C-alpha cells in the first residue's frame, strides 16, 4: 500500500514529499543566493564585454552610443585576421599531431612493459606540472639554439614563426591528451583485446576494431582539450613566436600594451562566439554518439583534467 500512496493521488493532488521539498528554509535561501552570485560573477563580465563592443566611445569602459564600427574595424584589420588564421592553423595542426602522439604514448604506458617506462611516465607529466613561463623560456632557448645550429650547418634561414609555435603547442598538448586517453584506457577491460586476438585479430586489427572504439570518447575529449589549450595559449606562444607569425591571443595581448580600443572587445566577442559554437558542436557530436557507446568520460573528463592543472 505504501508504494501506491507515494504516487500522485487520484484527485490530482501533489504528493506530500514534493510539498516538503519546496518549503522555505534559511539554508535553501542562502544556497539559492549563492548560486545567483556565482552566475553573476561568471557572466556579468561577459555581458559587459559584449555590450561595450558596440560602444562608440574610444575608451573601452565608457558608453558612447551604439555602433558596429569596431566590428568593421575588425573585418578590415588584416593583422587581426592573419592572427586568427595562424591561431586556427596552429590549433588544428597541433591538435591532430598531439592526439596521435599522446594516444600512442598512453597506449605504450598502459599496455606495455618496457625499460624506462616509469621514467617516461613521469617525464610525460612534466609539461602539465611546470609553469607556463618556464616552458616558454625553454622553448625560446631551444628554438634559438636549434635554429642557429641548423642555419649554420645547412646555410638555411630558419626563423621562429608558425612552425615553432606549432611544435611548442604539440609539446604541451601531448601530455594533456595522454592523461585523458589513459584515464579511458585504464577503465577498459584488457580482456576485450585478448578476446579480439583470440578471435583471429592481429594486434593492429584488435586495436582498430576494439581498443579504438572503446577509447574514442577519451581521444575526442583529449582532442577538444588540446584544441582549446592551443587556441588559449599566450605565454608559451609569445616566446615561441617570431616576427613572422603570431596567434590571436598574443596579438590581443599586444593590443592592450599599445593602448586599448574597443576593437579588443569586438575581437573578444568574435572569439567568444566561436568557442561557444565549438562547445555546442562538440556537445551535439557527443549527443549523437551517446546513443551507442560514448561513455561519460569524454568532455567532462577533459574538463576535469584541465581544471586540475
Amino acid at each position: 500500500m505504501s508504494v501506491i500512496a507515494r504516487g500522485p493521488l487520484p484527485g490530482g493532488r501533489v504528493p506530500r514529499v514534493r510539498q516538503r521539498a519546496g518549503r522555505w528554509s534559511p539554508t535553501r535561501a542562502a544556497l539559492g543566493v549563492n548560486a545567483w552570485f556565482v552566475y553573476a560573477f561568471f557572466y556579468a563580465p561577459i555581458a559587459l564585454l559584449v555590450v561595450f563592443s558596440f560602444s562608440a566611445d574610444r575608451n573601452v569602459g565608457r558608453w558612447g552610443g551604439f555602433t558596429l564600427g569596431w566590428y568593421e574595424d575588425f573585418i578590415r584589420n588584416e593583422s587581426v585576421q592573419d592572427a586568427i588564421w595562424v591561431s586556427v592553423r596552429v590549433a588544428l595542426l597541433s591538435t591532430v599531431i598531439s592526439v596521435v602522439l599522446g594516444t600512442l604514448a598512453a597506449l605504450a604506458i598502459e599496455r606495455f612493459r618496457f625499460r624506462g617506462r616509469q621514467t617516461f611516465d613521469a617525464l610525460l607529466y612534466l609539461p602539465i606540472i611546470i609553469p607556463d613561463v618556464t616552458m616558454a623560456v625553454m622553448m625560446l632557448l631551444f628554438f634559438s639554439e636549434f635554429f642557429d645550429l641548423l642555419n649554420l650547418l645547412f646555410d638555411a634561414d630558419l626563423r621562429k614563426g608558425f612552425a615553432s609555435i606549432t611544435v611548442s603547442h604539440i609539446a604541451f598538448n601531448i601530455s594533456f591528451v595522454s592523461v585523458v586517453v589513459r584515464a579511458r584506457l585504464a577503465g577498459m577491460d584488457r580482456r576485450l583485446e585478448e578476446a579480439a586476438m583470440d578471435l583471429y585479430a592481429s594486434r593492429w586489427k584488435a586495436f582498430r576494431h576494439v581498443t579504438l572504439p572503446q577509447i574514442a570518447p577519451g581521444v575526442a575529449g583529449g582532442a577538444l582539450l588540446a584544441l582549446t589549450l592551443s587556441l588559449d595559449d599566450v605565454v608559451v606562444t609569445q616566446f615561441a613566436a617570431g616576427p613572422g607569425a603570431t596567434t590571436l591571443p598574443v596579438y590581443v595581448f599586444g593590443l592592450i600594451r599599445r593602448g586599448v580600443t574597443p576593437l579588443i572587445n569586438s575581437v573578444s566577442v568574435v572569439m567568444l562566439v566561436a568557442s561557444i559554437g565549438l562547445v555546442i558542436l562538440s556537445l551535439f557530436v557527443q549527443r549523437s554518439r551517446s546513443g551507442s557507446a560514448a561513455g561519460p568520460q569524454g568532455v567532462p573528463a577533459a574538463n576535469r583534467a584541465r581544471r586540475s592543472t
Partner: protein
Amino acid sequence: MTDPVPAVTITGITKRFGDVTAVDDIDLEIGDGEFFALLGPSGCGKTTTLRMIAGLDFPTMGSLQIFGDEVGTLPPNKRPVNTVFQAYALFPHMNVADNVAFGLKMQKVERAERDRRVAEAVGLVQLGGMESRRPNQLSGGQQQRVALARALVNRPKVLLLDEPLGALDLKLRQEMQLELKALQREVGITFVFVTHDQEEALTMSDRIAVMHEGRLLQVGTPEEIYQRPANRFVADFIGRTNLLEATVASSEEVVLSNGMRVAAASEHPTGTKVAVSLRPEQAFLYRRGAAPAGWPTIDGVLREVTYVGNALVHTVAVDWITIEVRTPYRSTETTPEVGDEVSVSWEPGGVTVVGD
C-alpha cells in the same frame, strides 16, 4: 585415449612471472572430444595453463602441442582454439550478431557464408531474435551464450572456457552445466574448462586435472579422483572428507593415532605418516556397541546434528578429532540425539590412504 593424436599435449610446461612460478613443470594430455576440467583453488595455475593453450601467455619452457602441432610461441590469432572468457569480455560497442561475427570477419570469411554461420551459432545457443541487442541489454545467462556462440562460430578444434559459469547464480549455473555438456556432445569438439568449483568439475567433465600451487596433483575421471584421491590435498579439496592421521604398518594395514589398526591398502613404505580419508557418506552412525561385528569402529559422542534437506550431517567428537557422518534423512527413523554415546563405523576397505 583411443585417439592416437591428443587434442592438447602439454610436456614439461613451466611458466614464471618474475620470481613467481605460476605453473611448475606439468605434463598433460587432453584427448580429442573430451570435456576436460582444470580444477584447483585460486592461484593454483589453472587459468595460466588455459591462457598458455590459448596463446595469451607463453610458457617459460616446455612444449605445447595442439593436435600434434607445436604452438607454444604462436600468437592467439594463429591457433585453432577459441576462448570463452571469464565475465565473457563481449565487445560492448557491438551488437550480438557483430560480436559473434567478429572472428569470421577477422578471418575474412565471405559475407554470405559468415551470415549463415552466425545465424547457425546464434540458433545453437538459442538466442535467435536477439541479434541486434547490445551486451548491456542482455542478462548474465544470455551474455554467456553470446560468448559461447562467438567462440563456437569459428569451429575451433579446442574450446577453452575460463570459469564460464562463475558469474551466474546457482540455479542458472546448474542449468548451464547441463546445457554446456549437451552442447559439447552436439558440436563434438574438445572442451577444456577452468573452475574452482569441485562440484561443477565432477558434474560436467569426462576427466579432471587437479592443480595446486602450480603443480598437477592428479588427473583422472571424476570417480577416480573422488574415490582414489592421490594425496591429502585432493582428498580434502574434492568433496568433503574426514582425514584421520595414521602411520603405515604394512602394505595392508595402517595404525591410527589412537593405536587402532585399520585395514587399508597403501603403497607407502612402512612407517610413513599418512592420512586415512573417510568420506562422510561412507561412514555409518550407530548407537554405542551396535556396530556390525568385524567393521572398524571408533567410539565418540554426538556433538551436533545438521539437517541439510536430503540428509543429516552428524558431527561426532572422538578422542582426538571430530568426524562428520552423513546419513540419508528419513522422517520415520529415530536417530541418536546430541549428547548420545555413539560409534562411527565403516565397511572394511571403505577408506582410502592418502599421503602428503
